[in-house]
């Protein structure tokens, strides 16, 4: 029964889906290569290990958060509360450390809070059938508000060096080129990629994004999987919050403020459709590289660093207009 109803859907989806994704990824790869060439031409420091290290350092947390976001958007939802969960876990880390909790206990507690925050999002979306866009704007304010209540105007920066070194030092045996957050991103990207592209669970995420009703009739546990995705996002954002805190050696209530839109922008740039059902982890990795590369290249070329949003925005527009233009072109050349 399940096989019968599921097979046509996946068969229908796969060819078109792979074609368009590959095309978009090729484009992204060209963009990344272009950035590398222009960047290294503009500045001899661009491709040095030291610069790559800094690149990973300043983009690690955002990169990590894009992975669960990609899954959520592919499943047809969105999570705007990610940066607030990061802020909340950072505030909690600082608060509990100030109260003398041992670090492992804090980690466990922060992880549980991250999972719970994601569960609240997931349950509101799936059980009460509320639109995730509105729900997560609400929890964006709520979780950031909780972070603000926990820490108030205080700043905690008395973390032991053994932990804050994790934020700024290189992973051993990598020749001082790879940060811990980069390593975590690579490992997570591989796991996410395998799960999304090579397991029934991953295929069902695409299926529910393409058509929730069809997925439901195909016997996919849509509600449970979506809740799980939101919890995963909460957990990973809590992890990003810990990394952020150790990197800056600062827990403050506005850590990561406004990052949610950057995370969404990278995921859309990756060719993930805002309507769900389309996208790939390779695309996300390439989009992270493009995003980090552009910021870094502009930094080295004396462009006003804060205005790099112009380039991000332009790429975002390109990501929605190029496929449309391509389709139009193909239709014209066929007729």
């Amino acid at each position, binding site marked *: 029964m399940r096989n019968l109803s599921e097979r046509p859907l996946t068969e229908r989806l796969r060819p078109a889906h792979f074609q368009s994704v590959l095309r978009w990824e090729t484009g992204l790869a060209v963009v990344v290569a272009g950035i590398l060439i222009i960047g290294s031409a503009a500045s001899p420091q661009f491709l040095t290990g030291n610069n790559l290290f800094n690149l990973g350092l300043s983009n690690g947390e955002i990169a990590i958060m894009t992975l669960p976001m990609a899954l959520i958007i592919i499943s047809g939802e969105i999570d705007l509360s990610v940066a607030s969960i990061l802020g909340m876990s950072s505030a909690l880390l600082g608060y509990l450390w100030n109260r003398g909790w041992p670090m492992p206990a804090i980690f466990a507690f922060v992880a549980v809070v991250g999972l719970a925050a994601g569960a609240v999002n997931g349950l509101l979306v799936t059980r009460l059938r509320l639109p995730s866009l509105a729900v997560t704007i609400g929890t964006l304010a709520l979780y950031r508000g909780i972070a603000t209540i926990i820490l108030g105007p205080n700043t905690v920066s008395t973390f032991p060096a053994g932990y804050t070194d994790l934020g700024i030092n290189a992973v051993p045996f990598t020749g001082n080129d790879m940060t811990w957050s980069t390593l975590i991103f690579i490992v997570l990207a591989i796991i996410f990629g395998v799960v999304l592209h090579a397991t029934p669970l991953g295929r069902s995420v695409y299926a529910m994004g393409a*058509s*929730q009703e069809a997925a439901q009739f195909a016997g996919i546990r849509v509600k449970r999987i979506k809740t799980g995705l939101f919890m995963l996002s909460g957990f990973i954002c809590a992890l990003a919050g810990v990394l952020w805190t150790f990197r800056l050696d600062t827990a403050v209530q506005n850590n990561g403020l406004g990052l949610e839109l950057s995370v969404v922008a990278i995921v859309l740039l990756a060719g993930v459709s805002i309507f769900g059902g389309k996208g790939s982890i390779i695309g996300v990795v390439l989009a992270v590289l493009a995003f980090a590369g552009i910021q870094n290249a502009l930094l080295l070329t004396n462009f006003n660093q804060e205005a790099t949003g112009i380039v991000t925005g332009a790429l975002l527009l390109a990501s929605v207009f190029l496929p449309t233009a391509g389709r139009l072109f193909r239709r014209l050349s066929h007729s």
Partner: protein
Amino acid sequence: MSAATLPDSGQRAERARDAGLAERVFRIRESGIVAVLVIFVAVTTIIKPRFLDVSNIQFVLVDTSTFALLALGQTLVVISRNVDLSVGSVVGLSAYLSASLFADHPGIPIPVVFLAGLGIGLACGIANGIMVAVGRVPSLVVTLATLYIIRGIDILIVGGNEVDASSLPDAFINIPKDTVVGIPVIAIAVAVVIAIGAYYLRTYRSGRDLYAIGSNPDAARLAGLPVGRRVLVAFAVSGGIAGVAGVLWASQFPTINSTAGTGYELQVVSAVVVGGVAIFGGSGTATGAALGALLLTTINSALYVLGISSFWDQAIWGFLLLVAIALDQTITERLTSALRSRKPRSRTAGPRHPGPKTSGSGKPGLTSSPSSTGTRHA
């Protein structure tokens, strides 16, 4: 629309009754916000009577004005099942440019500056509108992109500069302080604009079209409504309003730099949603959105007067927003089933001009699976 599709008088009466029901529900929804507002004000006043001081009321009204104005523009866009995330950046750009107009051209008439702000906002709004309406790409992505681009342009123009209130003419800085019989002029002006907006949405054909488009963009297109043009106008109005709001912003804050209005877009969307406008379009009123803005501002002020640290503001906002969304969903579902049980012939009736009631019947399926229909393109 030919005469053949016109319903017979029986159906028309039935529809009028249903429209009445939907109308009542909206009124209940709005009175819900008013009730929460009254409770907040009453409790705060009992504890701290100075909450109802003239100066504090004036303060809240002025604070609400800009916010409610932006909520009006956002309401038009959200009703048509779109969203405008670029308003915060437009406010920032317009605020800086209008303030620097005063600084660079002393003696420039204030209305000219307002027109300049309006023009900047209109340009941004029309750009958004063209991309969404003509390019048929999702507004969430387009306005997220223009949020970054417009803010980037702002940063490039401003650099590290800032305009100080001391370089602005007194008449301009006094705009938020001017009152008529104790009521801030700015609040009166904004109330008039919102009243016009509410009347337009309720009465004008193009206003009703926005509801139809938001309820079901494909059906609206098939019914021959000029979907692209309506959506374009909605974005243009939202942008224009954001431009004017930027000028008002410049008159209220002591310094204007490149961060003015950052993050404001999500607050405006919150106010609109708290005010009962469905995030996936098709239902809601301009009055509701303005009341939403008033409620959120009042809560901030109440917490301040009560001496509760402003650190609680955001958590309470977020909680209230979640309650409002959950409440709306319940109301919509009830309304849908009420309309279904009343109207067994609705499939053959072919509504000529969908009122708010169609939003009820169209929404639950959409909110649970917005992607399944793929109609968020509009």
